[in-house]
C-alpha cells in the first residue's frame, strides 16, 4: 500500500564535548561551558518505504564541540547536506495556520559486541556517524569518542536499542563552524534517507540528562498521506495538538522544489504537535499510524517489546511510527571528555 508519512522533529539529545581532560569531581563544566545550541529543527518524510530526514544543527556561540545521539528507525542509505528552505518553509506554514485559526493552541558478564559503524559523513562542521548496536555498545562507542553521557543515558539507550538498534551520532564543531564563517544562529541542514517500514518519533530521549522538573519544549511535525492516528493522544502529558489539516498545495510545492525533496507527494496531511512537558513526564514516544490501524503501545514506549521479538522484526507491526521530529531543547547537557583514568586496585 502506498504510504506517505513525514514528520519534522528536533534534535534529540545534545551533549557538549570537550577535548580536554575534565575534573573527576562534581561541579565542573567543560572548558567551553557557556556554549549552547539554539532550537534545532528536523523534517522527516516517509514515502513508499523510504524515510527522509532533514535536520539542522544550530548554535549560539561558544567553542569546542557539541554532540547529539539520535535513535533512528532504520539504517540510512545516505546522509548528505539538506536543502536550503525546507525547514523554514515548514515552520512558516504552521505559523501561518496558527494565526489564521486564532485558536488555542544482571552483572556484566563480558562486554557486548562493539557498535558497528555503518556510515561516516562530514557535512560542513558536522561529523556524523551512523551506528548499529545495543545500548551498551553504542554507549561505549560514544564514551570512547568523547561524549560524556548523562547518568540516565544507559537506560535510555537500552530503551531505544530494544526497538531499533540504529543510532546517529552527530558532533558539531563550533570552532570549525566559525572558521567556515558560520554565524551564531546559522544552521547546517542534513538530509538522511532511511528505508524503513517503521518510522517513529522518539520523545523520551528529549528528557535525557535533565532534572525531573526541567521543561522540555519541542515541536513535532508529521506529514502523512491522510490524517494519522497517534499514541499517546496529543492532549495530555505535555503534548498538545497545534495543527491538523490537509497540507496546502503551496507548501508541498515549496518543499518539493528544495534540494533532495522531489519525493514529496501531491497530497498530504500536516500535523503539528507541541511538546511542553516536565522531563519526568516524557516517558513515552509518539506512535503514529497512517493506515488506519491502532498505533502500538510498544512503539509508543508504553510497553516493552517482548523479549522474543527481535528489534528488527518490528516491520511486522501494523503501524507506522513516524520519524524523528524534535524541536528545541531548552537546555543541553554538559560533557567533558575525560582522560583515561587509572586506579590502583
Amino acid at each position, binding site marked *: 500500500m502506498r504510504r506517505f508519512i513525514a514528520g519534522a522533529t528536533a534534535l534529540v539529545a545534545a551533549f557538549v564535548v570537550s577535548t580536554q*581532560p*575534565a*575534573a*573527576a*569531581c*562534581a*561541579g*565542573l*563544566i567543560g572548558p567551553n561551558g557557556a556554549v549552547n545550541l539554539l532550537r534545532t529543527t528536523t523534517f522527516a518524510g516517509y514515502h513508499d518505504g523510504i524515510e527522509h530526514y532533514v535536520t539542522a544543527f544550530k548554535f549560539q556561540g561558544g567553542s569546542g564541540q557539541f554532540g547529539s545521539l539520535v535513535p533512528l528507525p532504520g539504517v540510512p542509505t545516505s546522509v548528505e547536506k539538506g536543502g536550503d528552505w525546507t525547514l523554514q518553509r515548514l515552520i512558516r506554514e504552521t505559523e501561518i495556520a496558527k494565526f489564521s485559526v486564532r485558536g488555542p493552541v544482571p*552483572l*556484566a558478564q563480558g*562486554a557486548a559486541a562493539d557498535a558497528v559503524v555503518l556510515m561516516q559523513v562530514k557535512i560542513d562542521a558536522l561529523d556524523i556517524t551512523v551506528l548499529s548496536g545495543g*545500548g*551498551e*555498545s*553504542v*554507549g*561505549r562507542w*560514544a*564514551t570512547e569518542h568523547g561524549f*560524556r*553521557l*548523562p*547518568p*540516565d*543515558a*544507559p*537506560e535510555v*539507550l537500552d530503551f531505544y536499542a530494544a526497538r531499533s538498534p540504529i543510532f546517529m551520532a552527530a558532533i558539531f564543531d563550533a570552532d570549525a563552524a566559525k572558521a567556515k564563517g558560520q554565524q551564531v544562529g546559522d544552521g547546517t541542514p542534513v538530509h538522511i534517507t532511511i528505508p524503513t517500514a517503521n518510522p517513529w518519533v522518539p520523545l523520551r530521549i528529549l528528557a535525557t*540528562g535533565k*532534572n525531573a522538573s526541567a521543561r522540555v519544549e519541542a515541536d513535532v511535525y508529521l506529514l502523512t498521506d491522510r490524517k494519522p492516528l497517534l499514541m499517546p493522544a496529543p492532549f495530555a502529558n505535555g503534548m498538545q495538538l497545534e495543527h491538523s489539516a490537509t497540507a496546502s498545495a503551496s507548501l508541498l510545492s515549496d518543499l518539493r522544489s528544495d534540494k533532495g525533496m522531489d519525493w514529496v507527494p501531491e497530497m498530504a496531511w500536516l500535523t503539528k504537535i507541541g511538546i511542553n512537558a516536565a522531563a519526568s513526564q516524557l516517558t513515552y514516544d509518539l506512535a503514529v499510524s497512517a493506515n488506519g490501524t491502532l498505533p502500538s503501545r510498544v512503539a509508543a514506549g508504553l510497553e516493552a517489546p517482548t523479549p522474543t521479538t527481535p528489534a528488527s522484526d518490528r516491520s511486522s507491526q501494523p503501524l507506522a511510527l513516524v520519524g524523528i521530529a524534535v524541536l528545541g531543547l531548552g537546555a543541553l*547537557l*554538559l560533557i567533558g571528555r*575525560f*582522560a*583515561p*583514568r*587509572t*586506579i*590502583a*586496585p
Partner: protein
Amino acid sequence: MALALAAFAASACASAQAATPTQVGIRIHYSRFEPTTIEVPAGVPITFTIVNDDPIDHEWLIGDTSFHDRHRTGTEPVHGDRPDEVSLPPMSIKRTTLTFAPGTYTYICHFPGHEAYGMVGVLVAKG
C-alpha cells in the same frame, strides 16, 4: 559524623593478616548503586568489588560529609591513588580494601548530575 576512614590499603593489609577481610560486592547499573545500604564490622578490612555495568564512566567515593563536600567542588582530573576514591571506566571491575572506624559513611558518584540522579549509598560500620 566523626572520623572518616580509619585506615586504608596499607594498614588494611597489615591487619588483614589477623582478620579475614569481609567481601562486599557493589554493582552499578543504570547509574544506580546496588545495594544502596551496606553494614560492615568496624575495624576489619573490607574488600569491595565494584562492577560498573554501564557503558559510561562512574566513580565510587566513600567518606563522611566533609569528604563529599570537597569532592562536590573538587577539580581533580583523575582518581585512583586512594582506596576510598575509585574511578570506574565503562564496563569495568575494580577492587579496593578499606577499614572503617565505627560510624556512617556515604558512597557517591560525583560526576555531574550523578548524585542528583541517585548514585548515593550508605555504609554503616558497626563496632
